[in-house]
């Protein structure tokens, strides 16, 4: 007989939905407490009210009001373009190479050492070289993002492809499927769990390297705003930038997993 998973009653479910908000709430309360008790000077540690006002102004303000008023949309679009540009580049190279070296030992022997040696180099080491090659701006940022996101995508795709139950491929062969269908109909779906993990790790690290790339003095972008605010001593603006990056990073992760789930049965129906 079929097994149904017991779903919790509705009231409990609602409470569960609020659970992820508990920790941010605690942090904000502690933040309020530190500020009202004057434990740290305001210019080093701005209060939630000030950060809230700065954030509101950054997102909804009129551009003529101040240096950061109403810039958010433009910065966000610029940064998102760089993150997804670099990320898609990393997927386009990392996923096929990973699957290849997970399945074919010659490919693994050929690429494994080289790629793992490159992986040992901290991403920040590439910054000077990227600046020389691509100059300050979008190209450097995309290069850094793509490079950093490549490794988790490559490694996880390889692991996923390697660990596919050979029985599934045998089953496909005996049902007479051709090579192409074996790859797209069996191998990739069976490796989907690892592939999605690799993509999520890659996208996460893409945000980190976005900020690194934008710290070098570009005009637009969330990282640029943070660096700019540091020079103007606007700690509140730095905090706003950090919070917005956290929110957008989390949202893009949800978007990625949601997108994979709606596109692929194997991501939707993970065993």
């Amino acid at each position, binding site marked *: 007989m079929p097994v149904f998973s017991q779903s919790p009653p509705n009231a409990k479910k609602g409470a569960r939905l609020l659970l992820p908000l508990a920790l941010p709430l605690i942090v904000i309360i502690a933040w309020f407490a530190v500020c009202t008790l004057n434990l740290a000077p305001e210019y080093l540690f701005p209060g939630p009210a000030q950060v809230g006002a700065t954030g509101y102004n950054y997102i909804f303000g009129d551009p003529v009001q101040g240096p950061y008023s109403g810039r958010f949309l433009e910065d966000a679009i610029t940064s998102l373009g760089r993150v997804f540009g670099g990320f898609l580049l990393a997927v386009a190279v990392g996923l096929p190479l990973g699957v290849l070296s997970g399945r074919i030992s010659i490919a693994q022997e050929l690429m494994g050492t080289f790629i793992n040696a490159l992986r040992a180099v901290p991403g920040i080491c590439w910054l000077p070289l990227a600046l020389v090659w691509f100059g300050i701006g979008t190209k450097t940022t995309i290069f850094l993002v793509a490079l950093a996101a490549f490794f988790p995508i490559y490694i996880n795709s390889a692991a996923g492809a390697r660990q596919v139950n050979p*029985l599934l491929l045998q*089953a496909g062969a*005996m049902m*007479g499927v051709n090579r192409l269908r074996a790859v797209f109909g069996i191998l990739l779906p069976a490796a989907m769990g690892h592939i999605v993990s690799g993509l999520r790790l890659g996208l996460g690290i893409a945000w980190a390297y976005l900020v690194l790339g934008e710290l070098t003095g570009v005009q637009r972008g969330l990282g640029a705003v943070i660096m700019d605010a540091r020079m103007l001593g606007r700690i509140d603006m730095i905090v706003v930038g950090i919070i917005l990056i956290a929110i957008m990073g989390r949202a893009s992760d949800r978007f990625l997993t949601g997108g994979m789930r709606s596109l692929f049965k194997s991501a939707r129906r993970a065993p």
Partner: protein
Amino acid sequence: MKANLKLIGGLPRAEKSPKVLDLTAVSKVFPISGGFFTAFENLTFSARTGEFLAVTGPSGCGKSTLLKIIAGFLKADAGKVLISGSPVKGPGADRCMVFQEDALFPWLTVEENVAFGLFRRGLVKKKIKERVAHFLELVGLAPFGRYLPGEISGGMRQRVALARVLVLEPLVLLMDEPFASLDMQTRQEMQDLTVSLWKELDQTIVFVTHDVVEACSLADRVLIMKGAPGRIQDDIPVNLPRPRSVDSPALLRLKAKIRQKLATGL
């Protein structure tokens, strides 16, 4: 049309039909550290269309390896393996296997699993749907088409595994200890199902099992293998009427006889 091939009673009904599976002097050797291990040598046997053949023997006698060679997953080192007169070159849908372990695609529903092998055959969607529905009905899973393999029991998963290969109408159905991991009752149900499908579809079956009773209660003929190196020690026709009861004196005598042969090698 198929009905006239069937003989009522205990006689093997496939007595006069053509040989669909024909092995001649087949050997398989595996390289191991410091030498070679001969899985079996000089195996010669054949199966006729519609015949239900069981292969039994102790573990390590090479019976699973034999099945993998017929399926085309492994290559024989010597000898000939013919399917309907043409040599086996690799895996193909004319020889389908039901594995001991669960080998369904967990991301596809029961229906999609059964339809998987049909898609390259140039059938229209409606035809595929009909065939899938028909074979799910045959294995008793008609209401479960939209379930995922993870949502149904182990016995039901093996029913799906049966349906997805039977739908391809293979010349030979290979079964590699397919019910070994099921509980006693489910196992009995699956054995009954296998026999009824075999009758209904006139399907040639090669069934590997280490369970002598299972072999005797299912097959027209039991091949007894001994290890190592593996060889066919005996080829015993089972002239018992169906349905067979595992407690019937005739079957118990046969079981004792085979056990004796396995123990003494005579």
